[in-house]
């Protein structure tokens, strides 16, 4: 990984955490896409040999602090997410936009479900999750994010 790619990845990580924290009206917050998950998907699809399971630990812990969830909840969901992506990434590369969007939708639903189950398993307090809305918005945002990154990568001669 050269220095330009490193800067790009760092900027991307900074940006997704800004987007996660952006203050918004209550209604829109329910619709907030899973930005960090989208970034992780992009990274794993683009460079599966560099971005593996280790990514889940720092990003997951930061997400937990950001959302005040139990420490480890997002580590778990991100680890499963990356694992599934590593199984799928060869096929994902052949998929068209619509198929990719469907996969992203299912992955976000899986993440929400997993976090709900994990919290219910280890503690008494249930956290309410919105199962469908973030998945829907994430899936809608995905093609744009994907196209945008590819354009940026082509510009920077990194693809």
């Amino acid at each position, binding site marked *: 990984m050269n220095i330009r790619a490193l800067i790009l990845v760092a900027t991307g990580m*900074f940006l997704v*955490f*800004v*987007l*996660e*924290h*952006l*203050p918004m009206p*209550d209604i829109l*917050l*329910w619709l907030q896409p899973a930005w960090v998950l989208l970034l992780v998907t992009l990274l794993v699809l683009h460079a599966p040999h560099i971005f593996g*399971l280790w990514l*889940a*630990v720092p990003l*997951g*812990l*930061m997400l*937990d*602090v*950001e959302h*005040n969830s*139990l*420490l*480890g*909840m997002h*580590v*778990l969901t991100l*680890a*499963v997410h*990356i*694992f599934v992506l*590593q*199984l799928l990434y060869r096929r994902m590369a052949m998929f068209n936009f619509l198929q990719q969007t469907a996969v992203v939708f299912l992955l976000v639903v899986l993440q929400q479900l997993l976090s709900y189950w*994990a*919290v219910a*398993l*280890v*503690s008494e*307090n249930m*956290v*309410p999750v919105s199962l469908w809305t973030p998945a829907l918005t994430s899936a809608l945002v995905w093609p744009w994010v994907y196209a945008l990154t590819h354009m940026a990568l082509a510009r920077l001669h990194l693809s």
Partner: protein
Amino acid sequence: MPTFQRQRVLGIVVLALALMWLDSHAPWLQSVRYITGYLLAPAQQVALVPSAIGNWFGESAASRQELTNENKQLTARNLVLELRAQRLAALEAENIELRELLSASEQVDDRVLVTAVVAVDPDPFSQQILINKGGEDGVFIGQPVLDAYGLLGQVIDVMPYSARVLMIADSNHAIPVQVNRNGVRAIAVGTGALDELELIYVPNTADIIKGDLLVSSGLGGRYPRGYPVATVTKVENIPGKSFAAVTAEPSAHLDRSRHLLLVFSHGSGQVPPGGLWQGKE
């Protein structure tokens, strides 16, 4: 997919579950949270820039007329408050004198820190807000938070440059209160609705009527004494039940206040470090 990859993901999942269990049952991981908060701080600061710019534009675009009017209003309000403060000084002196007569310990004025609300928790089942002061400003877990009208809640999570506040209306929150008129004690529990608190275990015969002001009693050892908490809106005596159903409306503007006060009061919330105790003995 090689087997070690599967083992690794299984390892991370088990580790994460253990971490979650530890976090929900013991307070040991607070420092991990705090340190991770440093990593998040720059992104959080940048995320607040758009709203700060919006505020700035709003303020700069106010007309001269508006500003003059506001200034006049504030001057008038200031005069009224000064007047009250003068009376308060006299009352305080009198109070201290009476307390000395009773040889009770004297009450010290609370130190406060002004903070602003930067975000509201979107989760409809919890009433939490994020404020822009954190551990670096001396904020601590359990610290009482007030707005201009009354008690608002307490700090439950501290990050370096921000903190999370649990409001008194949250259904996981309870605060010991006292009727200002006659000193009857009760416990006010949040209902999850921002405009309603419930008083629990109030006997049917208790002297509480609609319109009574409830102030904090300080008995829990967390909140300071004597700050307004809520006004009683309904008292219902149900025949056959041992307790009356009393609801109250919070005095603090839970859904509107933008500027809040963090209170550093004597003997509230803060647990003194071990050295202090040893020094006393």
